[in-house]
């Protein structure tokens, strides 16, 4: 750690560089030797910013997200959140998984309550915890399904519970790992709209992994494009710069939106297309 970053630590991480990933890399030791998944990742995310991480499959974008979540440890570099090093998973970094990760023996309410209880039970009474849980479910439009089990609701509803659970924890960063990847196009669009509304109301800081170009452009303030793995790193960063609130229909013929979309597509399919061919 150099002197500069120690200074940063003293002031507790400023809002412009709320989440900092510095020279982070991840190398897996396998029987065939070392496998470098990602390397030299440098990225700072401001408080309240929405960043999308896009790249072809196998480019290590999930690895990067897991390093921020603390589910994977970087083998090089450092991840800092609000000036503190990330070493282990914790409820200040809520994750919404692609596979929903709901506990099937609990109702939607209980799934959210488990998280609420973990974060707030030290200072709050049961009634307040219940209120938080209900509020979170209401926010995602699931107040009526609160006592259903995950198996009794649709995929879109399950992911809403996942989002409610994450938001109810009031995390410093919301980490979304291809949250809508398993949903049909119509449900996905509706959830994207809801996510946009909820996130901008709450002013959340979001890091989202996606492979959907439209999703990235529609939702994100900045799009981080990853080169192909192995040894993937950040290839390009695009500031979207579209005003909010964004309307999906309006965007379809907004020049800036189309321009961003084209930039990302160009990156993915011209500069970074070769591995996709090999993989196929």
């Amino acid at each position, binding site marked *: 750690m150099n002197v500069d970053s120690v200074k940063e630590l003293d002031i507790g991480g400023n809002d412009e560089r709320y989440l900092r990933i510095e020279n982070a890399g991840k190398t897996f030791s396998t029987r065939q030797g070392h496998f470098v998944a990602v390397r030299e990742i440098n990225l700072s995310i401001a408080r309240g910013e929405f960043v999308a991480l896009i790249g072809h499959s196998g480019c290590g974008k999930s690895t990067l997200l897991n390093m921020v979540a603390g589910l994977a440890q970087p083998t090089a570099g450092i991840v800092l959140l609000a000036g503190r090093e990330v070493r282990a998973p914790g409820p200040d970094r809520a994750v919404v998984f692609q596979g929903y990760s709901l*506990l099937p023996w609990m109702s939607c309410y209980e799934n959210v309550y488990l998280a609420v209880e973990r974060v707030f039970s030290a200072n709050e009474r049961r009634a307040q915890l219940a209120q938080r849980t209900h509020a979170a479910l209401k926010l995602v439009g699931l107040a009526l399904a609160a006592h259903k089990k995950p198996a009794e609701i649709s995929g879109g509803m399950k992911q809403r519970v996942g989002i409610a659970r994450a938001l109810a924890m009031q995390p410093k960063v919301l980490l979304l790992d291809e949250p809508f990847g398993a949903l049909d196009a119509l449900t996905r669009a509706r959830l994207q709209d809801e996510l946009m509304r909820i996130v901008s109301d709450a002013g959340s800081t979001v890091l989202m992994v996606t492979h959907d170009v439209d999703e990235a452009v529609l939702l994100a303030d900045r799009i981080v494009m990853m080169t192909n793995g192995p040894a993937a790193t950040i290839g390009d960063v695009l500031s979207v710069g579209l005003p909010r609130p964004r309307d999906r229909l309006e965007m379809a013929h907004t020049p800036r939106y189309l321009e961003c979309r084209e930039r990302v597509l160009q990156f993915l399919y011209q500069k970074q297309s070769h591995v996709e061919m090999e993989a196929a």
Partner: protein
Amino acid sequence: MSAVVAAPPARAGRRGNDRSALSQQPMAAANDAARTTTLAPIEQHQQGKRAAHRAWLAPAVAPLAGIMLFLLLWQIVAQTGGQLPGPLKVWDAAIKVFADPFYQKGPNDQGIGWNVLSSLQRVAIGFGLAALIGIPAGFLIGRFVFVSQMSAPIIALLRPVSPLAWLPIGLLVFKAANPAAIWTIFICSLWPMIINTAVGVRQIPQEYLNVAKVLNLSESKVLTRILFPAVLPFMLTGVRLSIGVAWLVIVAAEMLTGGVGIGFWVWDEWNNLNVQHIIIAIFTIGIVGMLLELLLILIARRFEYAT
């Protein structure tokens, strides 16, 4: 369709209503009209009767036929010679035996109710002890690779051994018949519970454990809210298998140890050459075993979760 034809009179009444409400429900009325033209009322009625019978008889027909066939074969075998009593003789004896199931005339002559309860008590104790040790052991084996590798050779070696081979060890250690029988039950109930619990723990999907990690739950919360509920269905399968084996083994163990119990009763009646009672005992053992299995399936259903 079957609901439609099962109740012809009500259907006819409703059709009248449909016609009167033609303007509001043109589609429904048109459908009904089409049905009337293809099926004459009488024909429809007969079909309805047949379908109604089929609905509640069908599941009972085959089992009943099986039981009748079984009784018939039994009767034929009994009549062609030998000393095997036929179904009617056994039925008469059974009525007498079950008329007073809880009599007590000394330690070796008690009603069949006491014998069954004594056996169930041994199974409950032996099985309970096995659960107490087997389930935590299964958790450790499933959770820690080292423990798993450590216990693998022992389990592989001891599991195929007939539980009755353990009876002499029990007699030697406990110097009494009853604890030796319980010990035998304990040993045979242990393996299915250990193995099923361990498999259950190993198969917990990573996504559930990720929830625990992201929330940074305490070790006790992980156990009670995630590991235990996730493993419970596997564990209950182990319990069901264990009870099945235990109920098989108790009869044999009691034949060897004596005392009060359904297994001992079988042996006692063999010494008395009372074959009717032996057959009654066989059916009793079968029915009790079936009820145990059914009970555990009902319990397991209560704790199942759909993924």
